[in-house]
């Protein structure tokens, strides 16, 4: 009986497959050429082996690049938007399901415009001018791939150099012609004799340390000693490192600020055509490394630990709260009065899998913890009475508008600033902590906006918004008339990687500079294949000079290779930064900041929490760090809460123990 079934099955299958194989999806045209703006009806048909059209078939068309070639999904009506080779996939649903494709070449539009970037109307002999050129076509698209040919009307006056550079030689009027795609554009230059006879160059100091910023002042003067204010002065440097095994290196800005990475002698140059001047400066060893000692540990080795907060309780003792991650919704309370004897004094368990963030009010009475992965999917936050941290008691739970999960929170002046599902944050009045009340919210309106963190200081909320960077929002400072119920954004800065995950403001009293340090979070290497060890993180800290709020500028960075930044804190010109795979890095950020802070020897100390008894043994994954009363407390994903002590500054000329 079974054999009969199998025979029948085989026969049926053979017939079905033969029929199916005979059907073909024919498209018309197979290849097409279109002009931008043009429409074309694409056709498709299913035919049998004899070429007969099968009537009851439907078709779905789609363009692999719909922004360049728009195709209506079921009609095959195509409209060319942008030049290029595009593929349209055609599917005929049913049995058998058939697929084919049509190649469409959208011809580029003619070049319509070549635009020169800003060039001074009058240029001086002896200088080089880098040109910027933009080519646009009639469809409005920029066409950077179109080769540009530059020619000069008089090569003896202005010559053309590779990479669109002009070498200005002799005085006179010259026309530079840029040609691309059959279009030309002229730039008239009036070259005048370089009047600069001398450059008077000064540095604000001749001797400093690596990482110190030398500010140059260059004045170009003519033969009569008159200042030439529009002189295009270029800065450069050469150097000799004190260490023969290290190359001299540093950074000099177009504005004439120099910072040395390596201690050494550096010659700083200012040039303008044939006129040149230089000053020699010495960058000594920064010599700020200090010893750091592990002091204590509050071990959590049965689950992951998240963020921490240290505070002085109302009884004058010092306490910490730590969250847990991907676990059972527990927050731990610790007595850290004796950092060498960290004592677990209480815990609170809520309906959540992750308590990602923990914060305590300024008066030390109220804690707020965030919830993600609640079983009822309401998430939100939990407000806890910590006036006696040995008996922490839940005051209230709050989930209104926060059901998508709260990743980070902050408490500032009786308000909780709570993220809602990575899209926005709410300001929630907790004057009556039993009855929290939403009073305001802040959300960007950019496409695909997201948020990771919010930190409030001096009435300004600093939110980290990934690709939208940091947003400075007045929530009571007064700078922009904002209040908790009416947050007003007044400044922002975004950088290309789009990895902005945390932010911390810092004002250097000595220089008057106002910085906001922005931290990345990146995991470009993926998950550990075993699923057991922490991944290797990337990303670093970006130092943004916000002194001019309207024109923030990225001026410096701190990087620990293959470690990856996470949360950080600043106190007394020292940055305490947790790097996932790199432990806590203690960094001197005194003075003006410029360039690569790590290479400049600004790192004071580092300590890595490695715990053989950790949740994942010997796998540091440091979450955050906070200085408190002379100690550094830090939490680690795999091992819990730690404390360390940074030893006092070593007197000059004393021997440094570099072993740390």
């Amino acid at each position, binding site marked *: 009986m079974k054999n009969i*079934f199998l025979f*029948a099955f085989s026969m*049926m*299958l053979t017939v*079905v*497959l033969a029929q*199916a194989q005979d059907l073909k999806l024919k498209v018309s045209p197979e290849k097409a050429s279109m002009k931008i703006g043009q429409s074309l009806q694409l056709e498709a048909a299913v035919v049998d082996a004899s070429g007969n059209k099968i009537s009851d078939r*439907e078709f*779905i068309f*789609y363009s*692999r690049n*719909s922004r360049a070639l728009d195709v209506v*999904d*079921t009609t095959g009506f195509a409209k060319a938007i942008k030049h290029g080779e595009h593929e349209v*996939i055609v*599917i005929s*649903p*049913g*049995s*058998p*399901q058939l*697929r084919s494709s049509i190649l469409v070449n959208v011809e580029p539009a003619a070049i319509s415009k070549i635009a020169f970037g800003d060039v001074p109307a009058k240029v001086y002999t002896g200088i080089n001018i880098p040109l910027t050129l933009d080519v646009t076509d009639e469809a409005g698209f920029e066409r950077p791939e179109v080769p540009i040919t530059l020619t000069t009307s008089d090569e003896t006056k202005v010559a053309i150099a590779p990479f669109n550079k002009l070498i200005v030689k002799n005085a006179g009027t010259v026309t530079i012609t840029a040609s691309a795609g059959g279009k030309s554009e002229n730039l008239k230059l009036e070259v005048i004799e370089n009047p600069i006879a001398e450059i008077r160059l000064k540095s604000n100091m001749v001797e400093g340390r690596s990482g110190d910023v030398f500010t140059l002042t260059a004045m170009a003067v003519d033969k009569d000693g008159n200042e030439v204010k529009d002189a295009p002065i270029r800065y450069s440097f050469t150097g000799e490192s004190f260490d023969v095994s290290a190359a001299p290196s540093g950074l000099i800005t177009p504005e004439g600020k120099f910072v040395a990475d390596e201690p050494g002698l550096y010659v700083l140059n200012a040039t303008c055509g044939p006129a040149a001047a230089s000053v020699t400066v010495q960058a000594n060893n920064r010599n700020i490394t200090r010893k750091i000692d592990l002091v204590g540990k509050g071990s959590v080795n049965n689950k992951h630990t998240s963020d921490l907060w240290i505070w002085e309780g109302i009884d004058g003792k010092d306490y910490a709260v730590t969250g847990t*991650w*991907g*676990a*059972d*919704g*527990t927050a731990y309370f610790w007595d850290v009065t004796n950092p060498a004897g960290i004592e677990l004094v209480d815990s609170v368990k809520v*309906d959540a*899998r*992750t308590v990602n963030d923990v914060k305590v009010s300024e008066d030390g009475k109220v804690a707020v913890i965030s919830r993600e*992965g609640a*079983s*009822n*999917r*309401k998430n939100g936050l939990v407000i806890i009475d910590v006036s006696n941290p040995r008996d922490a008691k839940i005051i209230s739970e709050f*989930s*209104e*508008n*926060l*059901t*998508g999960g709260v990743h980070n929170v902050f408490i500032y002046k009786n308000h909780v600033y709570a993220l*809602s*599902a*990575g*899209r*926005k944050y709410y300001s929630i009045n907790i004057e009556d902590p039993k009855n929290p009340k939403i009073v305001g*919210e802040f*959300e960007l309106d950019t496409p695909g906006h*997201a948020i990771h963190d919010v930190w409030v200081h001096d009435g300004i909320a600093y939110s980290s918004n*990934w*690709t939208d960077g940091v947003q400075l929002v007045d929530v009571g400072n007064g700078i922009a008339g904002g209040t908790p119920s009416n947050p007003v954004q007044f400044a922002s800065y975004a950088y290309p990687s789009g990895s902005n995950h945390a932010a911390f403001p810092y004002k250097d009293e000595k220089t008057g500079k106002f910085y906001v340090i922005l931290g990345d979070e990146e*995991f470009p290497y*993926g*998950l*550990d294949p075993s*699923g057991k060890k922490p*991944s290797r993180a990337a990303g670093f800290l970006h130092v943004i000079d916000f002194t001019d709020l309207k024109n923030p500028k990225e001026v410096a960075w701190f990087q620990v290779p293959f470690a990856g930044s996470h949360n950080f804190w600043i106190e007394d010109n020292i940055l305490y930064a947790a790097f996932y795979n790199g432990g806590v890095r203690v960094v001197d950020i005194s003075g003006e900041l410029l360039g690569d802070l790590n290479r400049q020897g600004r790192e004071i100390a580092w300590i890595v929490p490695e715990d053989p008894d950790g949740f994942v043994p010997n796998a540091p*994954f440091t979450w955050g760090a906070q200085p408190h009363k002379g100690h550094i407390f830090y939490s680690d*994903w795999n091992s819990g809460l730690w404390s360390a002590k940074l030893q006092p500054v070593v007197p000059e000329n004393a021997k440094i123990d570099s072993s740390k």
Partner: protein
Amino acid sequence: MKHSIFNAVRKGTLFLVALMGFSIVSTAQDYYVYVTAESEDEVALIKFDGKNATVEETIPVGIWPAEIEGPHGINISPDGKYWYLSLAHGNPYGTLYKFSTETNEVVDTVRLGLFPASLQVSKATGLLYCVNFDLHGDMVPSTVSVVDPEEMIEIHRIETGVMPHGSRISSDGLYHYSVGMMSGELFEISTTKLKVTRKLNLDGKEEEPAMGGMDHSKMDHSKMGRSMMTESATMYHSATKPTWAIPHPTNGKVYVAGNGSDEIIEVDLEKWEVTNRFKTGKAPYNCDVTPDGKYLVATYKGSGETGIWDLNKGKELPRIKNTRKVTHGVTISPDSKYAFISVEGIGGEPGTMDVIDIKNAKKVSSVDMGKQAGGIIFWKME
């Protein structure tokens, strides 16, 4: 050979379907199921040998070790070669992953909308349809993403209701059914025409959702967003709060889990109207119908139980208590014998997959896995 069998099935030949069923039943021993652990960022591949369920492999998913990315919806390609997984959380958009069933390694990814959730490949079009649940957005209509899984390109988005959820495709692959959890609607999408062909208000209202009849009492997800604070006149929260829709393989009906109204709602596809309402346990969440069409299995999230309904008699078999609280998803073996139930658990509890003998309405096995077991899909018998 197996690939050819599935092609034959697509021809719709009843004889072949019956024969294939015979062939599989006569040889099958082991059942394989993929289950997501939403709060662990992993997927468990579980084998059930007829007596015991065991985790064969745990596959870590996502790219952010220090953020929960929330694997949510999961399904298998019609040829069984790939499994597809929606990772709900992103910055802000979620991602669809394509994995090989042979290696359980990532083949490709594509970014979708906000909080992509349940998904399925139509065997008619070969395209994948995934609801964008938009859990964390304002109370506005969201979409169903249409993806070509061969190229992993999102080719279209079709707007449906508020918080689209619980989607499944008809057995011929031509219609996609999903519900708007907060707008209380059932949507039918033509998988070939890529548009909504019909929608049905499950709250028993003929007019478009409006302020009248608001019922917040059963709401599980709070109102969200700026518009909710300032434009309360536009708020509508379905009392039915539908969370899943499953088309019956043969009887021309779609069954909807009324999570807010504690009922399974039967919708006649020809009449396009509600033709029956079965009172269930607390908060039915997901449901599935046995391939032989006899039984409907529903998860009761609120009571931690599984309900089995004899569809011919319209009666519920004795309820089965699940191993833990928060019963989530269900998938059924092709031989209609077993229902595999994902159970989330609470807090630090592990997630669990229960195996239920459908005919006898009994739990026959159980296995723990990562936290918050959610999305679940049957892979193969062998």
